[in-house]
């Protein structure tokens, strides 16, 4: 068979590899173009769902997904979503992150104009299952303890877990994880207090 002879030729190998790579890239480009809009829509819906979870119902009447302001903090860009009611900014929503026991903990929080937290949710973490994962609302209602807290209530030195003379519970067997979450939320409130002008402006 002719293919058998051709297949052993040296030039056949790079040509075959090139053809395969070309076909694979073409297939990926086509699929990527076909799925792009649907993926973007699905991710926007995910974001809207998680934003809506930290924001009390009825507080906003605008599309806060589109009303954003990008701020620089320590070389990183933080996107702040602004929830408005009747054109007036009522709350700011943004993500904060802090190193936990096993990698970064990503947190979404909403802060009202008086600097009080409206809601805190953990978006992503890789803490120990059964110990550190109590920071998820699905597992434990610990994260609800942040609702209504501000830098003035409790005072700055009380923004810590009970082991460090603060007001927030730690978990039996896991102190590093809640400590990181407390630090992240306090950092978020500090960030809001320092940049309030830019956020509302």
């Amino acid at each position, binding site marked *: 068979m002719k*293919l058998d002879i051709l*297949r*052993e030729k040296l030039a*056949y*190998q790079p040509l*075959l*590899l090139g053809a*395969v*790579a070309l076909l*694979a890239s073409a*297939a*990926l480009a086509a*699929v*990527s173009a*076909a*799925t792009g809009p*649907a*993926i973007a829509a*699905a991710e926007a*819906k*995910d974001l809207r769902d998680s934003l809506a979870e930290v924001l009390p119902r009825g507080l906003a009447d605008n599309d806060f997904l589109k009303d954003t302001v990008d701020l620089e903090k320590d070389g990183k860009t933080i996107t702040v979503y602004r929830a408005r009611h009747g054109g007036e900014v009522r709350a700011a929503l943004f993500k904060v992150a802090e190193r936990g026991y096993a990698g970064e903990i990503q947190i979404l929080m909403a802060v009202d104009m008086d600097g009080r937290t409206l809601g805190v949710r953990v978006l992503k973490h890789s803490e*120990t*299952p*059964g*110990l550190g994962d109590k920071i998820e609302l699905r597992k434990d209602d610990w994260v609800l303890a942040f609702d209504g807290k501000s830098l003035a209530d409790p005072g700055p030195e009380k923004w810590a877990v009970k082991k460090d003379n603060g007001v927030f519970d730690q978990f039996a067997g896991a102190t590093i994880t809640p400590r990181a979450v407390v630090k992240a939320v306090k950092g978020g409130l500090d960030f809001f207090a320092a940049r309030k002008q830019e956020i509302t402006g």
Partner: protein
Amino acid sequence: MSENSKIFKDGLWEQNVVFAQMLALCPTMAVTTSGTNGLGMGLATTAVLVVSNMLVSLIRQTVSSQVRIPVFVVLIATLVTIVDLAMNAWVHELYKVLGLFIALIVVNCAILGRAEAFAVKNGILASAVDGIAMGLGFTGALTLIGLIREFLGAGTLFAQASQLLGPAFAFLEVQVPGYGGALLMILPPGAFAVLGFLLAGKRLLERRLAERAAARPSPATA
């Protein structure tokens, strides 16, 4: 024994990816923290394995043996990426549960292993059957390990199965009352321990079967 039932017997028992070939141990250890996770990873792998086996079988005449490995690797990686994108776009809820595992399939050596060991020497139909058999064997192994670890470690069975399979499957979810679970079984050491006991159990069972077969001469050879 017909050809197809031999392929199935190989995939499910004799040449089981995890329990006999000891391939794909990395995803096996990593995702089997619950029966549901094991099942999801197994099903996603099966889908990729069937398609990759068929494609490899289709192009086996064209690909020269010198460059077959890079060609297969590109093929499998492309396939997995397409599945990943398509699931993210069109079955997004399922993707949120399985998303982590899809990308992991690329590094599953069982897929390249089947391309090399079977698909490159057999026709499309036989390769598809092999993909299904091997995939089901893999799914079974992962689900079994996941269920054992979940039961001992968290005191549940098939937790969150309704998220993966739909609300109709909520009846699968079992919670053992009054048992908090031994956390160690969920953590990596639990995976090694459970896999070790299952491998030992399979060996023991096979030895018993062989002894029984030897003790009683079969009528065909007598």
